[in-house]
C-alpha cells in the first residue's frame, strides 16, 4: 500500500513544515463553521461526555448557558491538556483542538447565524496560530519538533499489543497468554517474511479478531443459557406439571431474576412523557433490558438523527476530507504517524480504535438524539487512505449516511451483546494503557534527542510533577506537553549560554 503518495507525504513530513495549503485552510474553517452550527442545533457534539446532557436541552429542561457550562467543564482540560500540546508537538491538527471548542462555541452562540461565524473564526485561529507557532518552533536552536519524531516507533510497536491487554483483562490469563504468543509470533514472522510491511499490522488484526471472537462466543453461550432458563420459566408459568414432567427438565428458576419487566413499578421519571407507550414488554429476551422507556427513547433519537441526514452527510464528507489532506490525526497517537507520513499505519491504528468507541458513541447518540462530530470515527482511516479530496467528500458522506441509518439497529444489537459492549470498554482501556507507556517513552526519547541527560531530567521531571499535582494535564498528553515545555526551557538556557544543543 505504500505507493508514491506515501513517499510524497514522507517528503512533506521531512520538510517538517506545516504547510497548510489553501485547500486545507478553507476545509478547516468551513468544517469548524459547520460543526459549531450542528452543536448549536444540538445535532452533534464531539465530546462524548457532553452528548448525554443534550437531551435535557432539547426538551427545554435546561438552558443554553447551563449546557455550555457542562461543555466547558468537560472539554477545557482536553483542549489545553491534550489537543493543544499534541498539535504543537506534532504539527498536525487533532479533534480535541478543532472540535471541542466548536462544541462549546456552537452551544453558547445565542443566535443560529452566530454559531457558524464563531466556529469559522476558531478554525482560522487554529490554522494560522498553529502554523505560526510551528514555524517559530522550527527556527529555534534546540529543535524540539524534530526531536518529537522519536514518538512514532514506540507508539507503533507498543500499540500492537493492545488486543492482548484487552483479552487478558476481560477473559483471564490463559486467553491473554494465547493472544500474546500469537501476536508476538506474527510480528517476528512478518519481520522475517515481509520486511516492507509494518510488523505489527497482521498481529494487531489477529489480536482484534481473537478478542471479538471470545466476546461473541461468550455472549452467545450466555444467551443460550438464558433462553433455556426463560423456556423453563414459561413452562412453569403455564403451571402445567404434566408438561414440565414431559419436558423432563428440572426448572432452574432464579427467583430474583423472575420477569422483572412486569413486576417493575415504574417511578415517574422525567422522561416518562416520552415513555407513554404502554406497550408491556411482551417479548422478553432476557439479556436485553427491554424496558420500554429505553426502547422509545432510542427510537425517538434515531428518528431525529435520520431527519437531518443531509446535514450529517455534509459533515461526514468534511471530516473525511480533513483526514484525507493529511493535516489531521484522529486518535491520540495518530498525529505523530501522520506527521511522519505513515498514513497506512495511522489508518490501521485509528480503524481499531474506532471499535473501542463505537458502542459508546452509539449509546450516547441513541440516548440523547445527538450524534458524534466524527461519527463512529471510521471516516478518519478512510480519509487517510483515499487518493483524492473528491473521493474523501463522497466516501465520507456515504459512510455517515450508512452510520446514521444503521444507528437503531446497532443499538439493538449492542443491547443483546453485553460482552461486546464490555469488550469495547476493555479495548479503550487497553489502547489508553499502551499509548500511555508509548507516549511517555517516546517523550523521553525525544528529550534525550534534544538535550541528553538534561533533557531527560526536564521532561521526566515535568511529567512526574504533573502526576504529583493531581494531573493538571491529561496523562496521555503529559509526555508530549513536557517535551514542548522542556524544549522551550532548553532554548532559554541556550540563550543564557548555559546549554549547548546536541544537534546542529
Amino acid at each position: 500500500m505504500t505507493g508514491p503518495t506515501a513517499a510524497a507525504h514522507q517528503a512533506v513530513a521531512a520538510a517538517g513544515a506545516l504547510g497548510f495549503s489553501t485547500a486545507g485552510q478553507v476545509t478547516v474553517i468551513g468544517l469548524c463553521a459547520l460543526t459549531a452550527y450542528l452543536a448549536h442545533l444540538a445535532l452533534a457534539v464531539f465530546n462524548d461526555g457532553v452528548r448525554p446532557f443534550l437531551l435535557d436541552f432539547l426538551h427545554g429542561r435546561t438552558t443554553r448557558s447551563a449546557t455550555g457550562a457542562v461543555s466547558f467543564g468537560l472539554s477545557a482540560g482536553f483542549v489545553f491538556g491534550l489537543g493543544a500540546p499534541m498539535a504543537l508537538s506534532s504539527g498536525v491538527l487533532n479533534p480535541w483542538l478543532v472540535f471541542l471548542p466548536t462544541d462549546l462555541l456552537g452551544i453558547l452562540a445565542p443566535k443560529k447565524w452566530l454559531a457558524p461565524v464563531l466556529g469559522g473564526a476558531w478554525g482560522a485561529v487554529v490554522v494560522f496560530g498553529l502554523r505560526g507557532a510551528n514555524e517559530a518552533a522550527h527556527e529555534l536552536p534546540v529543535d524540539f519538533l524534530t526531536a518529537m519524531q522519536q514518538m512514532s516507533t514506540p507508539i507503533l510497536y507498543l500499540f500492537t499489543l493492545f488486543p492482548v491487554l484487552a483479552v487478558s483483562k476481560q477473559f483471564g490469563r490463559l486467553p491473554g497468554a494465547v493472544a500474546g504468543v500469537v501476536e508476538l509470533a506474527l510480528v517476528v514472522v512478518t519481520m522475517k517474511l515481509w520486511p516492507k510491511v509494518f510488523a505489527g499490522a497482521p498481529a494487531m488484526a489477529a489480536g482484534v479478531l481473537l478478542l471479538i471472537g471470545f466476546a461473541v462466543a461468550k455472549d452467545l453461550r450466555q444467551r443460550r443459557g438464558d433462553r433455556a432458563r426463560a423456556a423453563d420459566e414459561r413452562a412453569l408459568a403455564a403451571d402445567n406439571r404434566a408438561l414440565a414432567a414431559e419436558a423432563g427438565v428440572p426448572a432452574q428458576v432464579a427467583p430474583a431474576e423472575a420477569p422483572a419487566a412486569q413486576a417493575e413499578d415504574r417511578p415517574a421519571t422525567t422522561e416518562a412523557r416520552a415513555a407513554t407507550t404502554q406497550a408491556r414488554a411482551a417479548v422478553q429476551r432476557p439479556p436485553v433490558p427491554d424496558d420500554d422507556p429505553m426502547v422509545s427513547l432510542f427510537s425517538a433519537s434515531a428518528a431525529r438523527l435520520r431527519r437531518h441526514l443531509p446535514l450529517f452527510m455534509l459533515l461526514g464528507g468534511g471530516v473525511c476530507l480533513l483526514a484525507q489532506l493529511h493535516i489531521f490525526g484522529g486518535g491520540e497517537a495518530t498525529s505523530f504517524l501522520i506527521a511522519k507520513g505513515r498514513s497506512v499505519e495511522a489508518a490501521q491504528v485509528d480503524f481499531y480504535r474506532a471499535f473501542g468507541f463505537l458502542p459508546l458513541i452509539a449509546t450516547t447518540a441513541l440516548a440523547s438524539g445527538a450524534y458524534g462530530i466524527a461519527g463512529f470515527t471510521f471516516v478518519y482511516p478512510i480519509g487517510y487512505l483515499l487518493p483524492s479530496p473528491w473521493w474523501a467528500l463522497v466516501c465520507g458522506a456515504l459512510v455517515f449516511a450508512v452510520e446514521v441509518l444503521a444507528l437503531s439497529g446497532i443499538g439493538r444489537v449492542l443491547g443483546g451483546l453485553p460482552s461486546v459492549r464490555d469488550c469495547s470498554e476493555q479495548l479503550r482501556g487497553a489502547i489508553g494503557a499502551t499509548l500511555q507507556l508509548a507516549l511517555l517513552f517516546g517523550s523521553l526519547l525525544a528529550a534525550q534527542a534534544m538535550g541528553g541527560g538534561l533533557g531527560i531530567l526536564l521532561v521526566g521531571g515535568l511529567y512526574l510533577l504533573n502526576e504529583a499535582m493531581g494531573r493538571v494535564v491529561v496523562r496521555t498528553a503529559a509526555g508530549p506537553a513536557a517535551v514542548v515545555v522542556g524544549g522551550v526551557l532548553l532554548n532559554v538556557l541556550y540563550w543564557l549560554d548555559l546549554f549547548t544543543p546536541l544537534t546542529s
Partner: protein
Amino acid sequence: MTKILTGGLGKSEVAGRVTGLGLPGVEIVVSSDMDAAVQLRAGRADYFLGTCHTGAGASLGVLVGLLGSAVCHTFGRSVPTAEQIEALLDEGKKVFGYAVDQLDAVTPVLARAIAARTS
C-alpha cells in the same frame, strides 16, 4: 445493605478500590450503564459510579437519558471534597461520573460518603 453498581472504563478498578476499603453495609457490583439503568429504576440497586476519560461520556452513558439529569452528577476531571459529595447526596444524586485518571482519589471519598448513609 446499600448496593453500588459500577461501570465504564475503570469499573474493575473502582470495584477493587471499594472492596479494599472494607466498608460495612456496602456491596459493590461490576455492571454497565444499560444494566444499571434497569436496576436503579427497579430499585434493585442504590448508586452507580461510572468512570471514563471525560468523567461523563461512558461514565454516565445512557443513565442521564433514562434516569434524568436530576439524579446524575459528573465531577469531570475534578476531585470532590467530602462536603461536596454530602451536598450532592442530600440533593438525591444517585449516579456519579468521574475521570478514570482521578479514580484513586475520588472513589474512596465517594464510597465512604455513601457508606456513612447506610444504617
